[in-house]
């Protein structure tokens, strides 16, 4: 009954979304207040209906109602409760429902918090959200109904893919979707602006909190996914350039570019057309990612061709929305007047450079991801584009961008002084180079290139600190005044510097683990030892263990350093009974920012022997690896601080407040 109610709620949500798609636009055209107001109501009603529907499905999972096909295929009565719940979105149908839930959640937020928006803009934005909602609700109801029943009711479910039974999965997709789908708001704002044919700095200011919100979640989601893959897949890789990863990375790159270009638009009314285009591109890439992941086209062009119903549906959505938006853009873009002028060397110029590199990087990832599909479709020729390609193309694009990052915030708007900025960065650059050399000096046999690459990371970090120090006037005014000035800086200035700082931290993590990682592999019998990264691991014993829905062999290790025992580690091989699927549960020991990572392999049975006498053990020393995710979290946190900036909450430009005695804050904020 509850399940049917959920299905029914979804159908009514579809009807509501249709209303939301049409009436507000008509209202905005005619200037009819009451029609426009329907956008708000229907957005909130849609959200409540989809929420109800989502709760109904969750209920079916919680009580293990195996008469629902989706529950039968993805759950098991013995599964721990948290994975019963996270299993709701651990499959195609359920995760599409989550996707839509987040979409209507954002629409409802606009309806709720968008009171300061002009009525017609808000109506148009909600209508565009309504179009997207309608399309995806139709997709779910037509091709991916999560509420379908099966007769007769099976006794037991088939369990969730064990790799997905992890706390990481409980968090990763919702975060990712909040990011992905959050960019729909930017898209809707862009399309609404094109419909109205009017766009100004206020528009950029209204869109900014939404872009930031989506970006924060996407940053967190990608970092979470990366860490999950790192510890769950058992060989300690943290980024694979997998098409599915790329699908989430492209909107992130484009979204990062959008954050920066919207800045120019907000402060200087320049780059309007480009910002609108980027807003469209960012969400288009989110849609493209959804298509790539959902259609099965990535596994093989042929599986897509053999069961194309879902793929073709999403492809149609993709074509209509992206094509429609670009069409509208082509028609209206020329009528948008661009504003502020600037010199190539200026804050604006720096942000344009940022956009140039980020867009090129996005395009590189996009083409690398799609090229094999296109080539196979056109010529039938099969090629692979894998990590070596992306490392070779993406890497070099990032180096100049990273070098430029500290300069950007030091340049003035309109007309900057590059030499002056460089002079102010002498200290940061010198310290960075020194830090890189020191690290390499203490790491025997490290390549010189690693020192330079590390120095780039340090430069980005120190550059961010320099930026804040200069704004506070450190060295020019007394420490007290500097502190007060620092406290008086707009939060967005802090947020920006912090995000850049986090980027530097992440770069250091990436470089360190790439350059200095060590690995050891051996067949080990109990009592034997293996060395990695200055640590010695002693393999003590092997124990069987029984979990709620799996059995495992746990290897116990003692970690020694210079002969002294410092810790113990467990690493396991697990088999999930329902699917008979083996997984590895790596043992991870964190030392400072570095990690020791142990994975178990095959049992070794010598010829002639009846029982295995040893097991293959693989140990990695991953120096500073956690900085990769710590850096991402700092970045996301920087975004959060920027989001809390007063001006964003106020929404519209306000006259300057009375300046405080601590000295005027002249620098415009990020």
């Amino acid at each position, binding site marked *: 009954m509850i399940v049917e109610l959920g299905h029914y709620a979804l159908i009514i949500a579809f009807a509501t979304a249709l209303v939301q798609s049409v009436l507000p636009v008509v209202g905005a055209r005619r200037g009819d207040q009451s029609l426009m107001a329907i956008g708000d109501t229907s957005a909130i009603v849609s959200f409540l209906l989809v929420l109800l529907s989502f709760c109904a499905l969750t209920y079916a999972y919680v009580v293990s109602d195996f008469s629902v096909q989706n529950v039968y295929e993805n759950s098991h009565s013995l599964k721990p409760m948290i994975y019963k719940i996270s299993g709701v979105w651990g499959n195609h149908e359920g995760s599409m429902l989550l996707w839509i839930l987040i979409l209507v959640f954002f629409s409802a937020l606009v309806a709720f918090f968008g009171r300061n928006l002009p009525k017609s803009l808000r109506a148009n934005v909600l209508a565009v959200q309504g179009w997207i909602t309608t399309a995806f609700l139709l997709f779910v109801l037509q091709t991916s109904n999560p509420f379908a029943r099966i007769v007769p009711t099976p006794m037991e479910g088939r369990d969730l893919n064990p790799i997905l039974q992890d706390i990481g999965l409980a968090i990763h997709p919702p975060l990712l979707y909040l990011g992905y789908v959050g960019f729909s708001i930017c898209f809707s704002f862009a399309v609404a602006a094109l419909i109205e044919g009017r766009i100004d700095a206020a528009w950029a200011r209204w869109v900014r909190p939404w872009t930031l919100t989506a970006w924060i979640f996407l940053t967190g989601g990608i970092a979470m996914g990366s860490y999950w893959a790192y510890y769950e897949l058992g060989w300690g890789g943290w980024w694979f350039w997998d098409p599915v990863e790329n699908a989430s990375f492209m909107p992130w790159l484009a979204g990062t570019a959008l954050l920066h270009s919207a800045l120019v638009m907000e402060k200087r009314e320049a780059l309007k057309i480009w910002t609108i285009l980027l807003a469209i591109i960012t969400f288009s890439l989110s849609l493209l990612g959804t298509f790539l992941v959902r259609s099965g086209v990535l596994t093989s062009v042929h599986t897509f061709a053999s069961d194309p119903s879902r793929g073709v549906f999403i492809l149609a959505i993709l074509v209509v929305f992206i094509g429609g938006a670009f069409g509208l853009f082509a028609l209206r873009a020329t009528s948008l007047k661009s504003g502020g002028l600037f010199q190539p060397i200026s804050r604006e110029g720096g942000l344009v450079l940022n956009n140039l590199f980020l867009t*090129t990087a996005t395009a590189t990832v996009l083409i690398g991801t799609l090229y094999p599909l296109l080539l196979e479709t056109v010529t039938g020729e099969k090629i692979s584009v*894998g990590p*070596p390609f992306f490392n070779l193309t993406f890497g070099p694009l990032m180096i100049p961008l990273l070098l430029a990052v500290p300069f950007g915030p030091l340049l003035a708007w309109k007309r900057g002084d590059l030499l002056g900025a460089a002079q102010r960065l002498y200290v940061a650059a010198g310290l960075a180079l020194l830090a890189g050399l020191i690290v390499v000096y203490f790491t025997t046999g490290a390549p010189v290139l690693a020192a330079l690459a590390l120095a780039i990371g340090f430069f980005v970090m120190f550059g961010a600190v320099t930026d804040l120090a200069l704004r506070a006037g450190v060295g020019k005014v007394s420490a007290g005044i500097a502190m007060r000035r620092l406290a008086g800086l707009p939060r967005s200035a802090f947020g920006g510097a912090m995000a850049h700082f986090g980027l530097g931290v992440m770069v250091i993590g990436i470089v360190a683990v790439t350059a200095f990682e060590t690995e050891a592999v051996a*067949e080990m019998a*109990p009592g034997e030892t293996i060395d990695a990264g200055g640590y010695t691991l002693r393999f003590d014993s092997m124990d069987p263990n029984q979990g709620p829905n799996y*059995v495992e062999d746990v290897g116990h290790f003692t970690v020694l350093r210079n002969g002294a025992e410092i810790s113990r580690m467990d690493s396991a*091989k697990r088999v999930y009974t329902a699917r008979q699927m083996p997984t590895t549960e790596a043992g991870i020991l964190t030392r400072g920012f570095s990690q020791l990572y142990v994975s178990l392999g095959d049992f070794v049975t010598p010829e002639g022997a009846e029982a295995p006498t040893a097991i293959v053990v*693989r140990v990695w020393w991953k120096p500073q690896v956690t900085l990769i995710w710590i850096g991402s979290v700092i970045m996301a946190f920087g975004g959060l601080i920027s989001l809390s900036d007063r001006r964003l909450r106020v929404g519209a430009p306000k006259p300057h407040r009375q300046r405080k005695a601590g000295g005027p804050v002249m620098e415009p904020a990020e």
Partner: protein
Amino acid sequence: MIGGARIMALLIVVMGLASPAFAVQPNEILDDPALEQRARSISAELRCMVCQNQSIDDSDAELARDLRVLVRERLVSGDTDEQVYDYVVSRYGEFVLLRPRLSIQTLALWAAPILVMGAGIAAIATFLRNRDPLQAGPTLTEGEEKAIADLLKERSNRS
């Protein structure tokens, strides 16, 4: 805790499990570290043909293992890296290479970053050039310059 080997034997018998193998196995590793290093870097460039998106260096599939062993055999027999790639491609086709070779078919792929960057630079250059005349702004006449200088002088005298 009970001693390892007995338990392991028990587990294997009781559960009859095929456990996931690892990427490089200890018995595959070559004695010559330089050669092994080359084998590893070649392995990272070769696709595991039966996996989703893994190199044979990361994959635990049987076929990946065979290919790793094959690569090492060729290296031991004195092949250069290039010869190893050629040999593997002749057996498995271009699909096996994770970094596609430059050819007519992959020209667009490799040129893409440069082309996009070039187009971007061109667009920015056009944008800036079109702005230049406006950028300069109206210049001051000689009289106006003098007036400003006088005003400034007057001000500094006063203070």
